[in-house]
């Protein structure tokens, strides 16, 4: 009698023996195409800042450009964003209340989508959000960083309360190097199948704050979905959701609390730097104020 093991081997034997059309032979059309590409690659000059070998598609989406329409010289504020993916470098430019994004695909199939958003909080503080999504075999790595910097005295630090967390149990509790207790909560999103991730810092102290770190999309609360949270000493929080089909989604988050700076000091004088935990994507954002001539009419 045949065993179950044999049935699996039999199926694999059938697949191994099966080569539709007698098996592949060389493809002259493809070879010609490759040679044409090869020749084009050898003769086309490349821009200094971005080699198109890796950047398969770069998209700059800029919205909401606002400046006065009166004549004369208008000074606008913009931000230079330098994105390094592997050994490639791409420059983007983004203004206040704008978003810039780019997508690259490496030769081993990893798609990297970088989005930089310059905006303001409801308290008028400067806010920079950087999101890096790396799509790879079987899952996503998401690195999200939110930096808030403002002038003057500190205002309300958190827009969230324990009511937002409800009766959820913490997904992770830890004590940081300052001896303060912190917790991470993953709760269902208000709408849809996604989740909200809350970070509660300095628990049981007057400095306790509740921050919403991320709103991951997808079925984070479906049947058979498990969550895992880990935190490194330098504050990188890794959320891992494993799905019943074997797929997984990984988010790496780093939250930087509000920085108060002097009234007359420029914001982001030294720029903002964000790096994915694996070090493969580095982003630098620098402020630039420059003259821009506008049309007198």
């Amino acid at each position, binding site marked *: 009698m045949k065993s179950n*093991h044999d049935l699996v081997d039999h199926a694999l034997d059938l697949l191994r023996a099966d080569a539709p059309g007698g098996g592949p032979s060389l493809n002259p059309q493809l070879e010609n195409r*490759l040679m044409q590409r090869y020749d084009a690659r050898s003769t086309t000059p490349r821009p200094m800042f971005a080699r198109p070998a890796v950047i398969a598609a770069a998209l700059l989406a800029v919205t909401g450009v606002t400046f006065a329409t009166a004549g004369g010289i208008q000074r606008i504020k913009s931000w230079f964003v330098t994105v390094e993916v592997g050994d490639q470098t791409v420059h983007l430019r983004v203004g206040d209340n704008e978003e810039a994004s780019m997508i690259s695909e490496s030769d081993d199939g990893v798609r990297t989508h970088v989005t930089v958003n310059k905006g303001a909080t409801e308290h008028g503080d400067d806010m920079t959000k950087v999101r890096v999504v790396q799509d790879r075999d079987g899952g996503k790595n998401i690195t999200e960083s939110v930096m808030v910097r403002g002038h003057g005295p500190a205002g309300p630090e958190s827009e969230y309360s324990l009511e937002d967390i409800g009766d959820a149990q913490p997904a992770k509790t830890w004590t940081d190097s300052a001896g303060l207790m912190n917790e991470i909560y993953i709760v269902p999103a208000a709408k849809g199948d996604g989740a909200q991730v809350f970070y509660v810092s300095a628990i049981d102290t007057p400095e306790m704050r509740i921050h919403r770190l991320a709103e991951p999309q997808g079925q984070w609360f479906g049947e058979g979905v498990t969550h895992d949270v880990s935190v490194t000493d330098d504050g990188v929080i890794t959320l891992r959701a494993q799905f019943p*089909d074997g797929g997984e989604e990984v988010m790496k988050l780093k939250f930087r609390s509000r920085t108060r700076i002097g009234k007359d000091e420029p914001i982001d004088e030294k720029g903002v730097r964000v790096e994915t935990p694996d070090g493969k994507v580095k982003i630098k954002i620098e402020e630039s104020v420059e003259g821009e001539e506008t049309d007198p009419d």
Partner: protein
Amino acid sequence: MELEIAAPASAFAEVDDERDLVERARHDRRAFADLYRRHYPAIARYVLRRTGDAHAAEDLAADVFLAALRGLPRFRYRDVPVRAWLYRIATNGANRWAKKRRRRAIREWSAAVESQARHGGDDDSTSAEAALTGDMARQAMLTLSPKHQSVLALHYLEGLSVAQIAGSLGCREGTVKSRLARGRDALRERLENGRTHS
């Protein structure tokens, strides 16, 4: 269960001149053409076995070599054969294809199992083996998660060892072994019961 790691003949034949060929291919079109001719049949066969679709396989194989051409300037030869790199690119492409196709594969597999049951199929494993065709085996394979499909195909169909797969896919050998065991279990479950957990 003790996992059997008895692969067919090695897919990574020793090629003494490969390092030199890679170096020359960076600036010599004939050397790149040699690389293409040397590896295309194996890569095209792999994606054809993964998909069972000649047109999709042709597109995927073309994508692999176009990606290799783009990536060649940055490729560093570190005693990992070029074919391992090409398998990695091909696996990523085939996995994306399989991911899009999986729901349809599950529906088709369920329909095939129901049809077989209506037409007097019995549960005797000898009969089940006799009734199994290459198309059915592929349909069953396509219902698995892409990461299980890829290690099963690389090991049992292409003849790569666990270490070679780990090198190709950039993961640990333990991960490959685990995926092989789980992939076999999932394939057995499909073949035995026609279950379609997704």
